[in-house]
């Protein structure tokens, strides 16, 4: 569907190729940023309803422009640089956090052939990018030269590294089932004859739960928000940040949440595949709207968790990660191997 535009750009040679890639990147990055803005609004609305209050309602229709007002307020605020901070790292930290959060979107397939990079090692690339996000937090915490920021960074480092192992194990189950590291192939492998029951969520149910909960922990969201912990360490790693850099941290966190929502839908809920049989008119057609609907569901779960659960204690988080999730994930990888080996759960459309 993009072929004529692509060919027009490629007609200009190497420069055209670079411009075409930049256009594609902007086609993903700008909607992500806009989605973050509306996601923040939606979060405040949902939290408001769950707390039996109204939420933002003054700026724009139904308060929709509230986030944009907040962003402009932050951008025009003074940017404070703590006197005894490590200046270069203090400035770099928000960018180091932001870049992997957006780079990971390169391999997310939105529809058949609607992917920026159809890389063979897509799943590995995703793991690598999400594992790099923690650097922004650690560097921010250290460079601020503040005790609270340092404590937040330390907590976050230990937590993210622990939960990455659990999330990585869950993805091993997915790649055993799909027989491929390519994201598009993984979705194709879920397009079996049984419709919704061919998706990976059913045979990999424990891994599915582990992956999403680990995703919540990796993005430092409630109930695992040890890195911020307002009631314990003020605001954790970004306590010294103000103005635009704070906005960048905010953007990173929400972009990561949306990314995890998309990944959970792509890896376990069949991506752009329709939950209804193909013969059904209208709703049976597979397309990107299904992926967006599924991702919206997971994004909503994030907010639901935030409203429903109290914050975990630190030792409880570590126990859940190391003593519950990792053993279950390891055991289920073995089960998945047996299922696939004996053909009880087929490789879907991949083989």
């Amino acid at each position: 569907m993009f072929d004529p535009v692509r060919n027009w750009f490629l007609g200009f040679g190497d420069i055209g190729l670079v411009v075409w890639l930049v256009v594609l990147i902007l086609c993903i990055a700008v909607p992500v940023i806009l989605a973050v803005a509306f996601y923040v609004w939606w979060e405040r609305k949902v939290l408001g309803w769950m707390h039996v209050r109204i939420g933002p309602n003054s700026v724009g229709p139904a308060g929709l422009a509230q986030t944009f007002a907040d962003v402009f307020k932050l951008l025009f605020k003074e940017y404070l640089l703590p006197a005894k901070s490590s200046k270069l790292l203090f400035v770099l930290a928000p960018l180091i956090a932001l870049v992997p959060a957006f780079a990971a979107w390169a391999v997310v397939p939105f529809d058949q052939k609607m992917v920026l990079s159809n890389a063979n090692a897509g799943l590995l690339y995703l793991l690598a990018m999400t594992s790099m996000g923690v650097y922004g937090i650690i560097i921010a915490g250290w460079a601020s030269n503040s005790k609270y920021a340092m404590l937040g960074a330390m907590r976050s480092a230990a937590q993210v590294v622990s939960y990455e192992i659990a999330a990585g194990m869950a993805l091993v189950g997915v790649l055993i089932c799909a027989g491929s590291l390519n994201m598009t192939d993984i979705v194709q492998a879920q397009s079996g004859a049984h419709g919704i029951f061919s998706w990976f969520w059913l045979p990999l149910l424990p891994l599915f739960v582990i992956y999403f909960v680990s995703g919540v922990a990796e993005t430092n969201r409630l109930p695992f928000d040890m890195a911020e912990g307002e009631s314990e360490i003020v605001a954790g790693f970004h306590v010294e940040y103000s103005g635009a850099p704070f906005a960048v941290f905010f953007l990173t966190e929400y972009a990561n949440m949306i990314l995890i929502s998309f990944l959970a839908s792509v890896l376990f809920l069949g991506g752009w595949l329709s939950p209804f049989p193909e013969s059904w008119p209208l709703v049976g057609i597979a397309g990107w709207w299904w992926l967006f609907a599924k991702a919206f569901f997971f994004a909503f779960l994030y907010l639901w968790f935030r409203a429903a659960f109290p914050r975990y204690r630190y030792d409880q988080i570590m126990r859940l990660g190391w003593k519950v999730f990792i053993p279950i994930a390891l055991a289920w990888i073995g089960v998945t191997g047996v299922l696939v080996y004996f053909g009880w759960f087929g490789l879907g459309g991949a083989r």
Partner: protein
Amino acid sequence: MTIDLILFYIFSAVLVLAALGVIGAKNSVHAVLLLVLCFFTTSALWLLIQAEFLAIVLVLVYVGAVMVLFLFVVMMLDIKVEPLREGFIRYLPIGILVAAVMLVEMLLLIGVKNLQVAPPVDPSGASNTAWLGMALFTRFLLPFEVAAIILTVAVVAAVMLTLRKRSGTRYQNPSQQVAVKASERIRIVKMPSSPKPEPAP
């Protein structure tokens, strides 16, 4: 000059500068971060020769996990940098010796490799991830398993060496905590909502 070659020189320059920075940085945290940059640039170089699996695994394992823990430890330690830098001249001859040996070894390796023919290109176009997996689990299965066992033993040994039994520490038992019922923690007391009015005198 092709674009690959230009990129190679850019990444190599960054790599060499970052490596120099690792040993030259005054602050140990800066040194660790420069080491992260080294790994990342190496990974980019490997991507240039289309070893995508190794390149991404380098980022995943070293940048994403090992160096995070390294950074964690270095930040916690209060390292006095000055005494560490004192013996620079004294240890320089040993350093030069090691560097020379490594250089000779590398030259030998590259020399041997140049004598061989170019690596075979897979005609079916399978990714080198699949190739590596096939090689590891068929031809090199025994070394692979031995390496896995050695690593497991090392992990167990490290835990056993650092695990100290301290007397007097008290632990929570999560299974007991979970088994608690609401009735054990809270007692609902029935009380009249308003005190009975005093009889009028």
